[in-house]
């Protein structure tokens, strides 16, 4: 087994590319990230580790704009993310320059995934250790989209997805609770999914909302307010569950 994970270009006898799988492990260790697609809103949420007191949190933006209508969040090696994001931003402008049109979400996802794949088929390089969640509204059609890419270079569109730490629990929650939403409901669904695995509180989550007007990062106070709403709803649901039971006694 050990002989097949040194060089990326080598398949193992049972058909694995170990470097790619190890890259996926790196993603699983990264911070939790969730994306939810609504009819007129797409929400990205990322876990923020609040243990660093002296750090200026404004310098660590985990949800970034690739273009006016496209945003990206990722889980995994943040330094690798910088490289991919930079290349994607250049491609967004280059596309606008050559065809006088903004990119579609699918185009830029395909580009990023293509880049990630290239690094699984070259000598002397390692794959990018991150999975991305890419959201945006297509120009002209205004169709909202959420895509995910991973270190192997595969990509697909999702109604809602999660990546990074505890992504399985978040995805399970989303599968159980997903329905077509819009506006504030979409934001709440995304935050509820994130709260399944993250410590509650505005300073532990970073949330950004993409609408046709553009990307808006939510303020800590706003997030706290929504979290409070969600907790109140949860408490009300708990009380409602207990109340009919007590009537029987």
């Amino acid at each position, binding site marked *: 087994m050990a002989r097949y994970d040194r060089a990326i270009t080598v398949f193992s006898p049972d058909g694995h590319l170990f470097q790619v799988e190890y890259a996926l492990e790196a993603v699983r260790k990264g911070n939790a990230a969730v994306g939810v697609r609504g009819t007129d809103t797409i929400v990205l949420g990322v876990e923020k580790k609040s243990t660093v007191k002296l750090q200026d949190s404004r310098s660590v933006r985990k949800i970034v*704009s690739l273009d006016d209508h496209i945003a990206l969040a990722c889980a995994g090696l943040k330094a690798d993310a910088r490289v991919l994001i930079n290349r994607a931003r250049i491609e967004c402008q280059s596309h606008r320059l050559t065809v006088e049109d903004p990119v579609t979400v699918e185009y830029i996802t395909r580009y990023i995934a293509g880049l990630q794949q290239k690094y699984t088929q070259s000598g002397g390089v390692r794959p990018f250790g991150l999975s991305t969640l890419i959201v945006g509204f297509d120009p002209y059609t205004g169709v909202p989209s959420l895509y995910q890419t991973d270190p192997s270079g595969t990509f697909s569109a999702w109604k809602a997805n999660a990546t990074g730490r505890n992504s399985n629990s978040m995805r399970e929650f989303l599968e159980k609770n997903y329905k077509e939403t819009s506006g504030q409901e979409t934001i709440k669904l995304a935050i509820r999914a994130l709260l399944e695995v993250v410590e509650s509180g505005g300073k532990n989550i970073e949330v950004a909302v993409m609408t046709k007007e553009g990307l808006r990062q939510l303020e800590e106070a706003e997030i706290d307010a929504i979290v409070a709403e969600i907790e109140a709803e949860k408490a009300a649901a708990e009380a409602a569950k207990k109340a009919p039971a007590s009537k029987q006694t």
Partner: protein
Amino acid sequence: MECVFGMVGKRFALVVADTSAVNSILVHKSNEDKIMVLDSHKLMGASGEAGDRAQFTEYVQKNVALYHFRNGIPLTTKAAANFMRGELATALRKNPYMVNIVLAGYEKETGPSLYFIDYIATLHKVEKAAFGYGSYFSLAMMDRHYHPDMTVEEAIKLAEQCIEEIRSRLVVAPQNFVIKIVDKDGAREHSWRRTTKD
């Protein structure tokens, strides 16, 4: 015969350009917008070879946008002007861009500014600038009537006087002109001065 000129007023800057697209004796169209909105607070009036004009101005616009996405803040007008000059200078001794540019911008910190950038990569920060045959008339008019800290009304009146002078004195004067303004509220089209409706 292309006329582009600009001036700085009190907390705003103005750029005026003719709107004719000409090929030898044929006028392709008389509503060609030659003043590109570079970003929210910058205007770039360009004259010269039509192909080079489109190529260079679009290239600059996309690079200015890229800087904004990469760094989270927009380029200053001065930085954009120097970037343009650098690109023109690099191309000059190989494959020059035959484009002359009047760059106007507004920053909250430094107020309005105007830059004269010609095709051989000359860069000057100025109060008033003009390119083309029309510059003989508009520059003279501005030299006579311009004063610092003009209001928008005064500046528009001066621009109109320049346009009138160009119309009456230039042998093949352009038919229509567009005026664009940039101030704290951003860069936008102000008005047109037409003799033909295209």
